[in-house]
């Protein structure tokens, strides 16, 4: 297929992009051929979505250029990208809930009657046809707000396909779909390929990539690694390209010895149907909840701060039996007992972006005092935290929003370290953080554990869990199915443990 070197339809040359101080793409190139499906691969945060958003006109690149049929393309907004025949199915759902399926399908390119009015009859008919092609039995006049997530995903895909574009970007289109749905999607993708379109396919599922893609480009930490024909590579080879950095350099050494149990769950059932399990976290230990995404890791962690009511089990903190905290005061109550919770979405749930670094650091200390007590400045605490965490900020008065992702994450950690908590429960410790800051955060967490603390952590990046933790509890079907020493675990052994677990309702 590549012997004749067919001319490429789209060429992205030396693309670079930074969001503030964080460089997300460095000198990345991508060539898309007509009539081929191109897999774009890389770990979370490798820059795949950013690269595609540049091609879709959502973001503008700082350096580099985009050619279509050899001619430079200028894409200041999605409008120009659509006009140039580039259509995108975004990972995040972007359908408008207050419009009907038909209106969403044709939004931005509505067919008009002779008099200039909307041709609603044609919108309806063509939408019905497009839905039928995807085996969907939906009424075109239904509001999108009434659809399930999978149905919305399909409507979004139908919208992308319907755009009659020569380039179709599918950013994790199958995340919300089951196997049968994926097959329906693949049929459409093959048909589009046969029509000579260029398709970019972003997915983490290897079977899909090997089932449907012709060639693949791997990105790592915002840099180009390689482009290969899929028939010339193996899944292991691809993973090696995606991961292939020296992990040993990134992670601090593990704990030499562990102390007393500080947090004990016994007979814990996350949901009524889940199998009960026990879990113990010891002083000096970093314990990771590993496994496939969305298998209950988050529910288990959130039960500890009262954001999820477990179906059963007991909780002991430093040997003392406790009731599971309530939704209203759970976080406060647990913080008083020395347990700090760092949520996954630091912007939505954690930081106050408009407030200063100093205010975000000491807010936890203020929270312990009466509401109308005069607020102490706590300058010394702020100074100590910015120094020990090496938070890069112009001054303590700088708004947190102006900091890079890594420094924001450090501020959030600092809030709990300032309170001298003993147990940290952390979701996604390095989400949206660049590689240098990741390494620093790992070192901070290890230092915290060494000083007598204990950490319970989840992450979508299994590699991160393996490197950072002392021990991994593999979660599947809302229960712990295996307990592995992190030093001996591999991505493969974790996946195998999760998928071969018996008697677990997935």
């Amino acid at each position, binding site marked *: 297929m590549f012997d004749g070197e067919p001319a490429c339809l789209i060429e992205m040359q030396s693309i670079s992009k930074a969001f503030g101080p964080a460089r997300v793409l460095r000198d990345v190139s991508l060539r898309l051929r007509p009539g081929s499906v191109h897999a774009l691969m890389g770990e979370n945060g490798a820059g795949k979505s950013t690269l595609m958003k540049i091609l879709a006109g959502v973001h503008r690149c700082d350096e580099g250029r985009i050619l279509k049929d050899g001619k430079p393309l200028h894409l200041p907004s999605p*409008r120009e990208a659509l006009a140039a025949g580039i259509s995108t199915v975004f990972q995040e759902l972007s359908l*408008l809930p207050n419009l009907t399926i038909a209106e969403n399908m044709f939004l931005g*390119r509505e067919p008009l009657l002779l008099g200039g009015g909307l041709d609603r009859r044609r919108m309806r008919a063509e939408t019905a046809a497009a839905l039928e092609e995807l085996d969907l039995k939906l009424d075109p006049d239904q509001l999108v707000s009434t659809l399930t997530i999978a149905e919305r995903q399909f409507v979004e895909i139908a919208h992308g396909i319907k755009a009659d574009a020569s380039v179709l970007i599918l950013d994790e289109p199958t995340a919300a779909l089951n196997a049968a749905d994926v097959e329906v999607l693949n049929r459409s993708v093959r048909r589009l390929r046969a029509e000579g379109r260029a398709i970019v396919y972003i997915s983490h599922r290897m079977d899909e990539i090997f089932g449907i893609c012709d060639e693949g480009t791997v990105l790592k930490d915002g840099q180009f690694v390689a482009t290969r024909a899929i028939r010339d590579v193996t899944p292991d080879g691809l993973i090696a390209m995606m991961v292939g950095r020296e992990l040993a350099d990134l992670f601090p050494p593990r704990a030499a010895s562990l102390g007393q149990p500080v947090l004990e769950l016994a007979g814990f059932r996350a949901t009524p149907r889940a199998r009960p399990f026990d879990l113990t976290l010891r002083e000096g230990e970093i314990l990771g909840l590993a496994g496939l995404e969305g298998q209950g890791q988050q529910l288990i962690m959130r039960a500890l701060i009262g954001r999820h009511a477990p179906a059963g089990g007991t909780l002991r903190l430093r040997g003392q039996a406790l009731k599971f905290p309530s939704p209203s005061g759970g976080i406060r109550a647990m913080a008083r007992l020395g347990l700090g919770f760092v949520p996954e979405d630091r912007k939505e749930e954690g930081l106050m972006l408009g407030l200063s670094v100093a205010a975000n650091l000491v807010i936890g200390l203020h929270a312990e005092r009466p509401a109308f007590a005069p607020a102490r400045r706590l300058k010394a605490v702020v100074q100590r935290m910015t120094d020990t965490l090496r938070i890069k900020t112009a001054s303590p008065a700088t708004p947190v929003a102006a900091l890079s992702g890594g420094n924001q994450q450090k501020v959030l950690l600092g809030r709990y370290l300032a309170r001298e908590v003993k147990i940290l429960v952390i979701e996604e410790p390095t989400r949206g953080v660049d590689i240098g800051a990741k390494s620093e955060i790992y070192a901070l967490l290890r230092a915290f554990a060494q000083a007598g603390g204990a950490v319970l952590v989840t992450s979508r990046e299994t590699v991160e869990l393996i490197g950072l933790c002392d021990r991994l509890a593999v979660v599947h079907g809302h229960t712990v199915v295996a307990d592995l020493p992190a030093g001996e675990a591999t991505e493969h052994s974790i996946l195998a443990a999760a998928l071969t677990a018996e008697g677990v309702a997935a």
Partner: protein
Amino acid sequence: MIRWFTSGFSARRSRHGLWGVPLVIAVALVAILSLGTDQFATRENLFNLVAQAMPLLIAAIGQLFVILVGGLDLSVGSIISFSTAILSLDGPAVVLIPAVFVLAAAVGLINGLVITRMGVHPIIATLAMQYVLLGITRILRPVSGGTVPDLVIAAVQGSVLGVPLPLFWGIIAVGLAAKILYGSRFGLHLFAIGGGVAAGMDDAASTYGIRVGRNIVLAYVASALFAALAGVFLAGRIVSGDPNVGLLFELDAITAAAIGGTQLSGGVGSLHGTVLGAIVLALLANGMNLANVSPFIQTAIKGGLLLAIVGLQSRKKMGL
């Protein structure tokens, strides 16, 4: 058709909002007033009612355009007063009438540009415009006076074949708005922009290639033009220019839209709901006047009604 009708009464999943509520209230008010008083169902009172309701109805339709994109237009009242002042100047009707609409379009354009280009909050931008225009209007006409062109008076007062002329104004305004909101790309894009903003996806509409900024500007132009139309109508009723005639009109217009089921967060609302909202307000005022209720109590009742009706329509309950 039946599904469309029942959607006005269901709290869930209609982007037209709960327009069934003002419909029920309007029907109830008509029934109560017809049976309870003998002055209501008279030809004279109904003529009067239509003429009283019309400027509010027209201004509320304009307000609907900006509320749909999650905005607000507080300059409506000043535009109405300003329009009457322009019409009361010396000059031929063929100059004054077009001048009103050109000037109003310019006002709407400035409102829209200040909001989209300078990033000023709609309340502040249009509040500032309200003051500026009020000042200019008082320079033009410090107290009410002057006379408006005969053409305008003739178009507002009187009737054709027993149908009061104001009713035609309403039919034209509603027809025009229906064509724009439901039959044009612009109208659909207004719903799309508002729906995206309300769902916390401010960029959603632009990823579909919609020119968000331009459409928002046009919504403010539409609001200003409908306000000017209301102003011309009022000028025909009072026959002169009056710097205070439009005072607080913007708030009544917002009230009418809200009673009609329009969500101030954007993307949910309807023309028929807004029209019903204006009718409810007019019936309420008319009925309480007939019943000799003090105007102060009328205002308090209006506020209570607004709270009660809007309280019924939480966006969350609608699933939007």
